[in-house]
């Protein structure tokens, strides 16, 4: 099977006189070295991929990773500095102006992050814009545009102006404008990035169900891993202009190619962002190692627990004492409990939540959180951990904060 879109050693360097920068790049210099040397930015740094027909191919990366640049090389909005980009086996960089316009007008449509709707045109005329450029007669293009509006559920808005629509509706119009062209390839540049979480999820679902009918080759740029996992048949992770890994969602999650990809995946996981310190709580009662057995027992009774953490000077964690060990001492009228202090389960403050979870699963008691000097910062109880994990499921709020 031949690829619908194929990139071969694609390099894009911004600016004029790129020869020197390209030479440095070919010598293997890094992106930052090339900026220092020549002042030019390497947008895409030697990328190879093949995209099959009918596939949703997601390009994901942080801002500045070159994902939008790569997308714009596909329809020739940007021309590669070296290497080649093939659409249906034809090299985009070798087309003349006329062929390029034809490619854009008939083979490839694009959806933009900030919608790019013309404010002076009605919704119908916005959707019909591409057909108008192609020279389709007025009545015919309006008819087709209104059909496309039906497919995105906006037929009632056809005579309104863009300013009267919400963000989600505007992007549906952007989508309809691309669909009406009936081109085989759909380029989407962070199309849902400007929408709020709920609308975004809705639009993702719609795109998936729409794709089942239209079977287009979609190249989808995003910085949101959840979105990539949800939509992508295959995902390419970009960093500094290069692709770190291409694979299905499963392949990337279960078998990250390198440390960067691993960290990238975890970056979206709440367990990376929430560390042990942020979910720890100060316990209701503690006991100092200088206090007496009866004081410790009194506090246990008051808070209805079987154990207390023991602190030394300057909040240093000494360990924990158990009720069962204290009771015999109390009967013997002993005051000092230092002999029965046991080691407590601890995690350091910057432990990521995933590791906290495994630590806590093995421990019956709560886990104490300490800093690098052994100072006590609080405890993590089973219930706190469960609540946090539950909130995480409920929405993306924590992951992003």
């Amino acid at each position, binding site marked *: 099977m031949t690829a619908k879109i194929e990139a071969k050693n694609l390099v894009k360097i911004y600016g004029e006189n790129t020869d020197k920068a390209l030479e440095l790049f070919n010598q293997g210099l890094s992106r930052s070295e090339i900026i220092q040397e020549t002042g030019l930015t390497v947008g895409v740094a030697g990328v190879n991929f093949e995209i099959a027909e009918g596939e949703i191919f997601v390009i994901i990366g942080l801002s500045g990773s070159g994902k939008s640049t790569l997308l714009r090389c596909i329809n020739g909005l940007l021309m590669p500095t070296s290497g080649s980009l093939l659409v249906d086996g034809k090299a985009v960089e070798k087309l003349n102006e006329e062929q390029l316009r034809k490619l854009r007008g008939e083979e490839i449509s694009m959806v*933009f992050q900030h919608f790019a709707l013309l404010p*002076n045109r009605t919704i119908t005329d916005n959707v019909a*814009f*591409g057909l108008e*450029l192609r020279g389709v007669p007025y009545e015919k293009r309006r008819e087709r545009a209104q059909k496309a509006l039906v497919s995105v559920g906006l037929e009632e808005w056809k005579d309104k102006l863009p300013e009267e629509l919400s963000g989600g509706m505007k992007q549906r119009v952007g989508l309809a404008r691309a669909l009406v062209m009936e081109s085989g390839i759909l380029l989407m540049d962070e199309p849902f990035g400007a929408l709020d979480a709920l609308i975004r999820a809705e639009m993702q679902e719609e795109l998936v169900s729409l794709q089942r009918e239209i079977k287009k080759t979609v190249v989808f740029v995003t910085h949101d891993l959840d979105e990539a996992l949800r939509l992508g048949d295959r995902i390419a992770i970009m960093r500094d202009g290069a692709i770190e890994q291409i694979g299905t969602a499963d392949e990337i999650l279960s078998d990250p190619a390198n440390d960067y990809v691993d960290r990238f995946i975890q970056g979206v996981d709440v367990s990376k962002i929430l560390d042990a310190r942020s979910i720890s709580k100060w316990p209701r009662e503690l006991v100092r190692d200088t206090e007496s057995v009866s004081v410790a027992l009194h506090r246990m009774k008051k808070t209805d627990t079987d154990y207390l953490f023991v602190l030394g000077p300057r909040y240093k964690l000494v360990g924990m004492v158990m009720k069962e060990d204290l009771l015999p001492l109390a009967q013997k009228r002993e005051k000092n409990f230092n002999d029965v202090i046991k080691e407590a389960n601890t995690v350091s403050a910057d432990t990521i939540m995933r590791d906290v979870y495994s630590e806590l699963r093995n421990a019956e008691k709560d886990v104490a959180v300490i800093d690098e000097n052994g100072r006590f910062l609080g405890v993590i109880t089973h219930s706190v951990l469960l609540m946090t994990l539950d909130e995480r499921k409920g929405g993306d709020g924590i992951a992003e904060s």
Partner: protein
Amino acid sequence: MVLPSLELPKLPLGDAIEWFVRWLIKNLEVIFDIIREVLNAITGAFSDGLLWVHPVFLIVIFGLLIWLITGKLTALLSVLGLALVWNMGLWPQLVNTLVLVVVAVVIALLIGIPTGILMTRSQKLEGAMRPVLDFMQTMPPFVYLIPAVMLFGIGVVPGLFATVIFAIPPPVRLTYLGITQVPQEMKEMAIAFGANDRQVLTKVELPLSLPSIMAGVNQCIMLGISMVVIASMIGAGGLGEVVMRSVSRLDLSLGFESGLAIVILAMVLDRMSRNVGSGKKTPLSRIIEKYNNYRKQKQEKIEEAA
């Protein structure tokens, strides 16, 4: 104390310009003659035509036109103002001035708007034009009268020439400004959907920069009117001539009346050109809307029948 004089010889800047203008006259006289004759014919025919129509008829037509593109109140006030000018006996002068302004503005726009567009296409041209525009705007307008007379003699055409030069900078600058302020994503979108350079200009850049361009047109008209008074010093005629006459005679009554007539003309033209392209609802836009609705309903009926 006596200031020491600069011992260097004076640079012959002014002489150079004079030499250049004289060279133009000597070598390109035919061209200037043709321009003069053509413009004379156009303005002559234009004002003769307007003066042939009875003032009442003309005022009513103006009123209707203003009502269409602005609204009731502006139209009413304009009609009253124009009637006042007629009453003061300054109608022929008003028509002459109007013709002069309109022709000058049309020429200024025909040169200015394309220049503004070209400046957005070429950084070099933009850099070169900026000092030229500054020069044109800040040079005292009286100075333009001298080469104008040298090139075209006395009369309407040198007045037009000076007015055009004085009124060109705003449409150039505001066209340039408007187009450069069109969001990059819009242009990119047009290109991504297969637009060629001309389509990017006509379907995206010009429509989106229309408010700015129309502000330039408005400014152009205002500068044109103020220059027309000055141009009457070299025989351009119209209301400016009456103003000049009243100044030389210290005739306050005539001066006030002719000045007021200019103010009325300026206000009428300003209100007319201000609303265009601003997207405000006017009787004209309502009529167009109604027509569109009518057409849509008709089409829906046809579809239902089918």
